[in-house]
């Protein structure tokens, strides 16, 4: 009996460590050329966006710099999102709220060039740090909802996120590798888009890919899914902004 229990415990431990070891950032499954592109700041395709972010950071009487100082002072900030502050909020949402409430400027459209540039600039400061999404009762509820959505079959193709990114990660869809769907490098410069894009853009692309109703920008569904995904990738180190095919 004892031996069986021990064996069972051993199996559980092995299973747990195996799962932990199997997590791979999309960065590590890309081609060597793309990995080199992301690793070299002199060739990084987001460098113009980062330069725009630096410009915007110091623009205006109530600039970002007037409160936060240099962008370097925000090291680590990007790893603590999505957070709960009078509602679920992700990093672009926080920048947007700062812009409207403290700078008195009109809100940006989703995926506006300036919003992505500032998000990338802030995320860049946390390079090398592990993702540490915060805990809290509301966030736990959102993460559970996000997990349910992750496992829910959607759309005309009747596919869930999990069926590709958990069960078939590492296989191919058409010619492309299916990544495990980790969120460690957002915002990403996707070569297919030829621009920076947020996690929500990526998720909305997947939704339309399985021919499901595409959730609105910053909808409760997208934010819940983001919350779950951040926890799913917790502890993985960020190298934002990422480069993806």
């Amino acid at each position, binding site marked *: 009996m004892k031996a069986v229990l021990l064996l069972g415990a051993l199996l559980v431990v092995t299973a747990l460590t195996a799962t932990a070891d199997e997590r791979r950032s999309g960065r590590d499954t890309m081609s060597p050329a793309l990995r080199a592109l992301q690793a070299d*700041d*002199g*060739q990084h395709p987001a*460098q*113009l966006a980062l*330069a*725009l972010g630096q*410009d915007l950071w110091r623009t205006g009487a109530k600039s970002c710099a007037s409160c936060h100082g240099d962008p370097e002072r925000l090291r680590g900030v990007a790893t603590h999102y999505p957070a709960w502050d009078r509602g679920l909020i992700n990093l672009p949402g926080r920048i947007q709220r700062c812009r409207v409430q403290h700078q008195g400027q009109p809100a940006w459209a989703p995926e506006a060039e300036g919003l992505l540039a500032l998000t990338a600039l802030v995320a860049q400061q946390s390079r090398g740090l592990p993702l540490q999404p915060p805990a809290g009762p509301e966030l736990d509820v959102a993460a559970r909802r996000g997990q349910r959505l992750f496992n829910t079959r959607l759309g005309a193709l009747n596919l869930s996120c999990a069926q590709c990114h958990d069960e078939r990660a590492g296989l191919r869809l058409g010619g492309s590798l299916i990544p495990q769907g980790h969120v460690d490098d957002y915002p990403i410069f996707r070569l297919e888009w*030829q621009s920076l894009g947020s996690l929500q853009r990526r998720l909305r692309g997947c939704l339309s890919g399985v021919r499901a109703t595409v959730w609105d920008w910053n909808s409760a569904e997208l934010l819940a899914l983001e919350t779950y995904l951040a926890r799913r990738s917790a502890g993985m180190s960020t190298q934002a902004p990422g480069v993806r095919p």
Partner: protein
Amino acid sequence: MRSTRAVIVLPAAIQAGEPFEVRATVAHAMETGYRNDDAGTRLPRDLVRRFECRLDGELMFAADLFPAVSANPYVAFWMRLSQPGELSFVWRGDAGFEHRELRRITLS
């Protein structure tokens, strides 16, 4: 709209007589003039036509750019300097587009 942006990447230290790589990219749509917008109207051609890099006025490198060149054109080239100076980078194009960058080069 805000001013144009360009990113120029030079090695941290440059030795006299040693070749080094210069990388330059400028934010520009490079609209070919062959595309239509969603309403079907032709998008007017808007290209960067020429890129020049000069050391104290002397031409070091130049490139003519054409519609097949991607947006945000990226140019990388090598040069070798025997004395310090000021590198000027100029992009010129349609509709009076012009963007200049200066980089002072000190040799170590």
